[in-house]
């Protein structure tokens, strides 16, 4: 019903092209995260979907109907802004009921709907307060409440949690996931925080410079990144990459060409897949210079014999000989291979 199709959407501000032809097909009820570094065009795309920006080209369809000529409020989408954008002079209840009042909903019904949404979000005691009397987390809930009350088919979130502290953010993540299950609505969620995207989304759209780099489930983008950009963007600390020409002995152990004819050029191994000893099948000489403790695990930073940067994440406490040459290793199944252009190759 509220399937959202984004078809070859482009958008420029003056001479700068911000969206360079995007295609995304979002099914009804899906939770999709738009993930990417700052300035990659996430907000712009979301605002295009909302109708707050006109498209440069392409089409956006909600449930098989093009919405590009429909006013923002008539599209059946509600937006939660990063700044919350609560009306400062209205009470929480008035904020939440504003849209209903505008479209002429009778007062008792507005009250009922606002009350219901407030109950879901646990903000019933706040209904008569004004935004400036609320904490950041409470404002956040009101902003979400204002969207819920309209019972939209599509929710649009623009980094809704970025102004909250770490603990509250973690709690709101769980709440938003719960809310999504309960509301049976399509959600499009902009974030630059990969933890938010990985934990909440059914699918992640990784964007970069106005392009889509990959669309896939969180497991997909993590385990099978489509290219080096995604491989290094998803996962902390980021994936190690080595150019094969610097490691001839590895090149011999790996296929020289894959089924589709692609030739491996670069390999990537996640820090947690590297062993700090020589027990794996593929070995690299390295020097480790620095270790950091993250509590649950330790990070070791250093460089390989070929001079590439190397990061290892390990649960083990190892007797690190700072500056001493050592051997690290990994297994073939943990290697991601990319061709000359950085595109993923499968064995």
């Amino acid at each position, binding site marked *: 019903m509220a399937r959202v199709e984004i078809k070859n959407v482009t958008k420029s501000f003056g001479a700068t092209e911000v969206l360079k032809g995007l295609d995304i097909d979002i099914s009804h009820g899906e939770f999709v995260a738009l993930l990417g570094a700052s300035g990659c065009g996430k907000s712009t795309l979301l605002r295009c979907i*909302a109708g*707050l920006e006109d498209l440069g080209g392409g089409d956006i369809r909600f449930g098989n109907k093009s919405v590009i000529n429909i006013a*923002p*409020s*008539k599209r059946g*989408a*509600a*937006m939660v*802004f*990063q*700044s919350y*954008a*609560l*009306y*400062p*002079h209205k009470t929480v209840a008035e904020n939440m009921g*504003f*849209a209903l009042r*505008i*479209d002429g909903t009778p007062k008792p019904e507005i009250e009922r709907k606002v009350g219901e949404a407030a109950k879901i979000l646990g903000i019933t005691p706040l209904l008569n307060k004004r935004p400036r009397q609320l904490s950041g987390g409470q404002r956040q809930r009101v902003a979400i409440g*204002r969207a819920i009350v*309209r019972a939209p088919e599509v929710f649009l979130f623009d980094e809704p949690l970025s102004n909250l502290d770490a603990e509250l953010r973690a709690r709101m993540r769980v709440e938003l996931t719960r809310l999504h299950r309960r509301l049976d609505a399509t959600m499009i969620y902009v974030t630059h925080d990969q933890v938010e995207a990985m934990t909440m989304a059914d699918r992640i759209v990784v964007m970069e410079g106005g392009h889509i780099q990959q669309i896939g489930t969180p497991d997909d983008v993590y385990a099978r990144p489509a290219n080096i950009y995604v491989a290094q963007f998803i996962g902390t600390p980021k994936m190690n990459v080595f150019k094969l020409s610097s490691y001839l002995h590895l090149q011999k152990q790996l296929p020289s060409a894959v089924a589709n004819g692609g030739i491996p050029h670069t390999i990537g191994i996640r820090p947690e897949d590297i062993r700090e000893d020589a027990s794996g099948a593929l070995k690299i000489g390295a020097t480790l210079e620095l270790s950091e403790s993250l509590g649950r695990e330790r990070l070791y930073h250093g460089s390989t014999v070929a001079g590439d940067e190397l990061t290892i994440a390990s649960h083990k406490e190892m007797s690190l000989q700072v500056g001493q040459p050592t051997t690290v290793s990994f297994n073939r199944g943990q290697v991601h291979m990319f061709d000359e252009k950085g595109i993923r190759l499968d064995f």
Partner: protein
Amino acid sequence: MLPVQHRHETWVFRGLLTIFVFFLLMPILWMLSTSFKAPEEVFLKVPTIIPEEPTLRNYMRALTETRILTYLYNGLIVSMTNAALTTVLAALAAYGFAKFRFKGRKSLMFLMISAQMFPYAVLLISLYPFMQRTGLFDTRSGLILAYLVFAMPASIYILFSYIVNLPDELIEAARMDGADEWLILRELILPLLTPGLITVFLYSFMWSWNDLLYSLTLISSETKRTVGPGLLLTFLGEMEQDWGAAMAGSVIVSLPIILAFTFLQRFFVQGLTAGAVK
């Protein structure tokens, strides 16, 4: 606030402040005092500050023997209309300039603001023939229009700086909620703009109420005169030298401004300083 560290500095500071306030308030005190004095007391060689035998006769004379009530009526009509029109029009213009992108926005804005650079007497030179040719000379509407011309640029600028500081997302949220431009203006911009609106209203009211030059030049009939030229012509003419009545008249015409300020000063001060500190 400056830290005042030493006792003697405090006293110097207070002394300066006292002198300043004295010069500021002296004419007003003098006006009040004289307005309650009997004619003999007004001309004493050693003037008294507090009238020895306070009397209301000056007020009676000012109200009955002059046309002060007519002037008050005209003044109120002209100033209220001017203030109301200025506020409404300036709010609309400022909203347009602040939140809509259209061609020539910057140059138009600059043009409006630059009208302020001309001394208002200079504006009169072009307004005068304009009023005569359009039949607006010696009409209250003409005078209101002239005040509007003068009060608009500053008013637009004051409101512009308010609206520019309102986040765009607020307006977009309302648009998502289904509000059209008028509703956004009425339910969102105007309520959030209240201090600015009051500032502009007071500013334009005060300006037209206190004006002498425009009113003196653009109004010729006695029955349409506003308070400034009204009082001036009365007490320089037929009632010359009746200082008691002149001062009583002055007190009477100052009342609307004093009242307005007493009620609205909280907003006025807030309005003038808003935006200076975030």
